[in-house]
């Protein structure tokens, strides 16, 4: 089997099909260069992940934003309210019995 960088990346991401995953693991056991490459790639991904902020919001700022968004929904969305006269007109227009 020809191993490409794409295979290694998919293996690290855990998106490789099970059979290919096993093949890569077997190959890594036989060839130290492949094992080394996988380790290096894994380390690189861990480093990249640690450099990306994953903001944990405090409940106060979260609640403020949620309240703002609720206000925006109320201001922008206008629910269709059926006029009572339209409802009456609809009933009057309906044929109840037809001979």
């Amino acid at each position: 089997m020809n191993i490409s960088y794409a295979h290694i990346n998919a293996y690290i991401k855990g998106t490789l099909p099970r059979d290919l995953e096993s093949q890569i693991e077997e190959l890594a056991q036989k060839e130290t260069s492949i094992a080394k490459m996988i380790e290096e790639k894994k380390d690189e991904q861990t480093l990249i992940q640690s450099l990306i902020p994953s903001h944990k919001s405090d409940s106060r700022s979260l609640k403020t934003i949620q309240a703002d968004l609720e206000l925006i929904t109320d201001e922008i969305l206008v629910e269709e309210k059926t006029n009572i006269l339209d409802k009456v007109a609809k009933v009057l227009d309906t044929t109840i019995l037809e001979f």
Partner: protein
Amino acid sequence: MKKEEINSQIKIITPTLQKFAWAMIPEEEMVAELISDAYSVFLIKSADDLISKEITDFSNSELSLFRKSLAHKVLKEIYNLALKKADKIRSESKRSLEYKSFYDLDLRSRAFLCLVHNFNYTDKDLKSFFECESHDLIEYRFNAQANLLKDYQDTEVHV
């Protein structure tokens, strides 16, 4: 769909919106402003669709898919607005020393890395988000990761 239903769904995805907006700009007030403006743009564009949509009978998985699509659309608006406000954002971003390598990247790279690493976006999601082709994603991924690591290594050398 009623306003209360939209609000309850939006409430659930707000932490996601907040996390993404922080990746665009590490400034609390601007984060709130960015999210509010982006949500307004989204609502104006999608008001008719949202009102006519019925989610009352949705199963949990259908609701989850609906929320994913809702978050995707609002995140896109956050990103588009951030691009428009890039100059203002760039000057504010300089304040942050924490995650400096990340905030030194351009907005597209930051968005890309955040979507992939924090939200597990697939290539299909990314193509829809950036409205691009598969080969563009390869370029975005390479540039974002390479520049992030380069900036980090340069910073380490200087420290």
